[in-house]
């Protein structure tokens, strides 16, 4: 493997670092796979005061962040230094969920003395790992509806991404592999594996061993992961986990759909305080524009909590995805027409 041009921390300018990150092909490894160099470009007139390193798993079942924090803490701190330099933030907060106290302790113990920052424990609650939730929990700031984290002077980066930056940039290498949690009832040897990017799903599953009656495989966790249509697709940079279910374990999701009984579970569950019940009824009536204009549909980040808790098994988040698509299409049509 041939190394590229290293990008030394001390001598490089922020622009050079960003270019190096782009060169290395680093994207958000939490699952969204958003190009990191785009995220890091702070436009004129904006500034960042706090950098948050997201060590809260994005989904239940997944434990990649945990392993990375325990095993790659040195890479993480190097990565943090790069990120601080790029963003101009004054301090860094590493957010860890309370059930991973060992990782937090390890990070605290190895925390470099010259870094301004801390390691914070967070309540264990899905979707704690979502950016918006972290800002609210750690800084008490909320990203304005329709806005970006930059609007509240914060920047969030996944631990795995940070670790990759810290590992790759000094060497001038590109991203070639990533840590993936392979789990689910159908998997025989569950665990975190470092997998070369591009590995076909079938190789991976053969390696860890799965039950005969495996029925459903998702790339990602069970809440937001997309279903794999075939075992011949490859692992990508955005694949944070692979979850495999058997027929028997998927039973619950086949329950009949009842009308909404207004139990309010979804209202309690929605992390951004939407009213999924009302949105669901509106969606059933095709009132997409009402949903968007009056009930903040577009703020929904599709965590799936509402669908998860719904005792009537109404596919709420699924409806919202469709509604959002319809709204976007309508908006595009409108601008296209004018």
């Amino acid at each position, binding site marked *: 493997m041939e190394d590229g041009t290293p990008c030394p921390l001390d001598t490089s300018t922020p622009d050079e670092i960003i270019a190096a990150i782009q060169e290395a092909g680093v994207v958000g490894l939490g699952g969204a796979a958003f190009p990191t160099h785009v995220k890091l470009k702070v436009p004129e007139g904006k500034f960042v005061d706090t950098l948050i390193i997201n060590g809260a798993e994005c989904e239940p079942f997944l434990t990649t962040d945990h392993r990375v924090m325990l095993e790659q803490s040195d890479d993480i701190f190097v990565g943090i230094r790069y990120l601080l330099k790029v963003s101009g933030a004054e301090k860094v907060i590493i957010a860890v969920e309370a059930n991973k106290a060992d990782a937090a302790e390890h990070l605290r113990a190895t925390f470099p003395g010259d870094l301004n920052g801390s390691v914070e424990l967070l309540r264990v609650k899905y979707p704690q790992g979502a950016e918006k939730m972290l800002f609210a929990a750690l800084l008490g700031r909320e990203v304005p509806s329709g806005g970006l984290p930059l609007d509240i002077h914060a920047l969030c980066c996944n631990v795995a991404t940070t670790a990759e930056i810290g590992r790759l940039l000094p060497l001038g290498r590109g991203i070639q592999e990533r840590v993936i949690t392979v789990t689910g009832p159908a998997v025989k040897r569950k665990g975190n594996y470092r997998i070369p990017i591009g590995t076909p799903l079938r190789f991976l599953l053969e390696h860890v061993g799965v039950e005969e009656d495996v029925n459903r495989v998702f790339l990602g966790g069970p809440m937001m992961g997309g279903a794999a249509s075939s075992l011949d697709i490859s692992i990508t940079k955005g694949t944070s986990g692979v979850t495999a279910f058997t027929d028997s374990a998927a039973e619950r999701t086949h329950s009949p759909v009842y*009308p909404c009984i207004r139990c309010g579970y979804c209202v309690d569950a929605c992390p951004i305080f939407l009213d999924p019940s*009302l949105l669901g*009824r*509106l969606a*059933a*009536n095709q009132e997409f524009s009402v949903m968007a204009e009056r009930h903040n549909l577009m703020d929904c980040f599709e965590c799936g909590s509402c669908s998860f808790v719904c005792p009537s098994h109404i596919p709420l988040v699924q409806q919202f995805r469709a509604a959002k698509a319809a709204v976007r299409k309508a908006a595009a049509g409108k601008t296209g027409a004018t």
Partner: protein
Amino acid sequence: MNQESLWSIFINASLVNNFVLAYFLGICPFLGVSSKLETATRMGGAVTFVMLVSSVCAFGIQALLVAIDAPYLKLISFIAVIASTVQLVEMFIKKFSPALFRALGIFLPLITTNCAILGLALFQTNKGYGFVQSIVYALGAGAGFTLALVLMAGLREKLDLAEVPDVTKGTAMALMLAGLLSVTFMGFGGLGG
């Protein structure tokens, strides 16, 4: 002269003998504008206001009619005065408060033939209410009308999104809701005593 206390008049007019739910007065606007909360609130406000004004007018006319001993002109003068008062109020609001006019404007002409207004004027004279009693009566009736309208609007907006059977859709369901609200308001019976 009627001796009823003001509090009792108010409770009776608004809850116990609610104009809409017990006397069926103002059903047309009740069914017509109660499908959206916003219009319902505005309509309620407009009706209350007109009720207040026409209650005062009716009190004056009744005194006049008694003085000239012409009871047979009661109905004609009431309706004429209410209609012209509404017109005047409309012009007045239009001139001095365009914002209010935008909010209430389209409802005012509708109110002219709203039986709740005429009903109020007739009832207050039949009951022999004094001036202050009449005003309280008008306020109570207006509050009751608004309450019924607003409750109804809430229920109808909610049921808008329901999978209502085809037979029930529309007026039939609104009437059924009104009936259930009327049953609910029966619980207030005896409160004004």
